[in-house]
């Protein structure tokens, strides 16, 4: 069973459907026991970093999520990916879940923000499982980006500056774009996450 963390930050329906269509049983919950009984934990999210951390703290999920990320395959999507990092600077400095080293900063680009639309992935050569997504388009909606070491980056996109699109540290993955809104390619990326974490 896959658990999608419900913490009041946006659209869980499409994320849930993406996994259901791949044949997985899905539960949307903020119940720590249910989260602990899941095989995979998915942290979605739309909104601001600060508001999201407040919701997580209000629901006493902070310590539980840090613990789950050590124990099982864990995937953060969009804002959920940003929360995996140490600090966010949207609406002031906020401590994140500190699972992956790095910070979330405003995108510095000559282009308009938010970075919204279909943009192309470039895959790091250290992540062969994702090679087939080289130059594929996926759907982004965000104004802040991760700044983290090369070794944590699986894929980037170019928007006048290099933006991490997929990050990974061990069994923890983060996806900045919306795989659930990126057509067939997005679904294949979710499938790859499931395959990559299958033997852990």
């Amino acid at each position, binding site marked *: 069973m896959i658990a999608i963390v419900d913490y009041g930050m946006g*659209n869980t329906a*499409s994320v849930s459907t*993406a996994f259901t269509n791949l044949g997985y049983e899905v539960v949307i919950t903020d119940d720590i026991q249910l989260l602990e009984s899941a095989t995979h934990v998915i942290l979605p999210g739309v909104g601001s970093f600060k508001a999201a951390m407040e919701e997580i703290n209000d629901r006493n999920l902070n310590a539980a999520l840090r613990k789950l990320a050590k124990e099982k395959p864990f995937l953060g999507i969009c804002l959920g990916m940003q929360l995996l990092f140490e600090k966010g600077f949207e609406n002031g400095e906020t401590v994140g879940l500190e699972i992956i080293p790095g910070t979330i900063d405003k995108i510095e680009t000559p282009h308009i923000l938010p970075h919204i639309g279909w943009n192309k992935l470039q895959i790091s050569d250290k992540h062969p499982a994702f090679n087939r997504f080289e130059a594929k388009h996926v*759907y982004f909606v965000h104004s802040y980006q991760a700044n983290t070491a090369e070794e944590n980056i699986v894929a980037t996109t170019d*928007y006048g500056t290099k933006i991490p699109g997929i990050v990974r540290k061990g069994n923890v993955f983060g996806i900045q774009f919306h795989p659930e809104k*990126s057509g067939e390619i997005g679904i294949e990326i979710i499938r790859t996450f499931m395959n990559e974490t299958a033997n852990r």
Partner: protein
Amino acid sequence: MIVKRIIPCLDVKEGKVVKGTNFVGLRELGDPVEMASAYSKAGADEIVFLDISATNEGRQTMVDIVRATAREVFVPFTVGGGVRTIDDVTRLLQAGADKVGMNSAAVVNPSLITEASARFGAQCIVVAIDAKRFGDKWHVMTHGGSKDTGLDAIEWAKTAEKNGAGEILLTSVDTDGVKDGFDTELTSAVVEAVRIPVIASGGCGKPEHFSDIFKATDVSAGLAASIFHENTFTVGEVKRICQQEGVDIREA
């Protein structure tokens, strides 16, 4: 870099996709969820639903359609038509819409844009502008393009941006239905005036009209209805021609 988007638009009345908006003798074309799903599989970059229902039942049906679409469609989709209050916006977003479009209500009450944008983020608030040429200016039209508000369309686009709109869906009342191409001058004028993405709408009759407007202006997306619904051209054919013409698109 971000690619140009090709967007099929579905006019929905009382739960069915219909052809035409303001004319008598509307023809039913099919089920909105099935059609949106088919377009998404065919390579549409986004789907727009325009609810032209006249009844409260019809509007409630639209919420059900949005909920079902969120389960079937894996590209972003926007819902507009009859969005009057912050509650309407909330209802559609909670049902699973990625963006909500507002038109007449935003003209009457521009703070609706501000309120919705502050609550849900600019990225999901689309302001739809129907514009018609008057001399060397364009006026904002409401009531399906029939009522002149006297507002300058370019100024209104700037105001919408300032109030928190994340995107502008720009329909030319002059070219709409003529099928002789998008309105280049209007589109260009609005694109130059704002720093948010603009979707061009009205006048598309063949795939080349998409590549024409993408080459002539910095518009972010093109929207069309009839060329897709009448099976004249598929999304794939439109994209292939755009690609041949050197327009950067997502492969269908």
